[in-house]
């Protein structure tokens, strides 16, 4: 019985975490964007508008689920699930602390990217199934964009994997403990800065975030692939979207920013509050995404494709070769 419970609890925790993330992140987005626009954001429901998103979720639950005539019914109905399920699975390998993980996966990094890439399929299903021109154009743009940026995203973390020698996210975090010269933390964002820059750009594009948000550009396409969705189906699509930005930020934190560790602080102090540090770092990453969203204009699709294929991929390939070469030379130097 306890084994079953031990198996079920982490899954429930993942669902709960995803819901809380969705509610908190939407509130945070509205507040942050509000501040960036010199407005207040939500104010009225609860203290400082904090209960606003909870109220929104309850409202979505009680709204009529309008399924337009002429939709491809199976695709339309299944699309929110096809977006939601991989988004939940992606929580599996995130290392909140040394021991606190939903499941122990030796190939955690690869697994997370693999399930996240399934989200694009759900988006395409939603766009095609809706039988709406806005939806279709939005989904097509999303597909083209995901195709172009998947490769640099995957390739950008490979140098780090080569240095660490493991795909396990917890081991990648452990490899970043300590400091150089007693000052600079051993985070890969310093040693692998080009890889991080490419990761950030590609992650923004994969998340369909500004400046790469052509797939749901409000001023052009109504709401992109989500145009025809209402009530909780719409809620699912958006919950998954916010949850994905949490996942992407969590990967960035664990691969490039030392995960749950803090520089200059001994491990005995960190150990009890490790998950808190991890979540705070992740939320800071999301804040940066929102900051970019409130600041940058949208790029054009041809600029997007040029950037992805003609700049990011060659640079990452070169950086992988360079890192490999330096590693090998270091080994030879160490051996002789």
């Amino acid at each position, binding site marked *: 019985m306890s084994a079953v419970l031990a198996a079920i609890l982490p899954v429930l925790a993942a669902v709960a975490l995803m819901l809380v993330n969705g509610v908190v992140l939407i509130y945070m987005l509205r507040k942050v964007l509000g501040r960036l626009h010199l407005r207040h954001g939500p104010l009225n429901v609860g203290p400082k508008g904090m209960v606003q998103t909870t109220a929104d979720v309850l409202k979505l*639950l009680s709204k009529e*689920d309008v399924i337009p005539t002429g939709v491809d019914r199976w695709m339309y109905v299944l699309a929110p699930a096809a977006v939601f399920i991989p988004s939940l699975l992606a929580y599996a390998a995130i290392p909140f602390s040394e021991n606190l993980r939903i*499941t122990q996966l030796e190939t955690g990094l690869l697994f997370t990217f693999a399930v996240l890439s399934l989200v694009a399929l759900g988006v395409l299903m939603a766009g095609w199934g809706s039988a709406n021109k806005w939806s279709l154009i939005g989904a097509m743009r999303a597909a083209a964009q995901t195709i172009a940026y998947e490769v640099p995203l*995957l390739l950008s973390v490979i140098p780090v994997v*080569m240095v660490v020698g493991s795909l396990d996210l917890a081991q990648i975090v452990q490899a970043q403990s300590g400091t150089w010269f007693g000052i600079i933390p051993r985070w890969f964002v310093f040693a692998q800065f080009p890889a991080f820059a490419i990761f950030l750009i590609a992650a923004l594009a994969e998340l369909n975030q500004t400046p790469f948000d052509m797939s749901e550009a409000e001023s052009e396409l*109504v709401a992109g692939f989500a145009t025809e969705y209402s009530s909780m189906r719409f809620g699912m699509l958006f919950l998954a979207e916010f949850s994905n930005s949490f996942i992407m930020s969590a990967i960035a934190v664990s691969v490039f920013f030392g995960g749950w560790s803090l520089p200059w602080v001994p491990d005995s102090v960190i150990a009890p509050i490790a998950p808190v540090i991890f979540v705070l770092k992740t939320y800071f990453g999301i804040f940066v995404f929102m900051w970019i969203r409130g600041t940058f204009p949208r790029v054009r699709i041809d600029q997007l*494709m040029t950037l992805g294929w003609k700049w990011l*991929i060659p640079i990452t390939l070169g950086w992988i070769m360079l890192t490999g070469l330096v*590693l*090998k030379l270091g080994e030879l130097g160490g051996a002789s």
Partner: protein
Amino acid sequence: MEGPFAWGVLFVIGSAAAAVAFILIVFAANALLSPRLPTPEKLEPYECGMPPAGIAWAPVRLRFTAIALLLVIFDAEAAVLFAVAPAVKGDPAAAAAAGIFVALLAIGLVYAWRKGVLSWR
């Protein structure tokens, strides 16, 4: 199947099942709480309030078929590199082989570039 791998697979199946259960619960709650008042206008596809013109599934020009092929190649490359990368620190011959593999694909990218596949016309 034993050990951590089996646990991983079990976890994936379990959480997919949990996700499905969650979705079913949410939609059931939605169905109980929400009204059902369909009208012909409400069920029209949204086209800014105008009567929809033609069908949405009109042929679209996929400018990225060649790019999609490239994606398949480079995704396969990334998958192989993910398998090789943790071992780069070990055997020099294997690392060299991985390097040659990356170089070959880079030549392929240059070829596609010269053929004009990568420009969005």
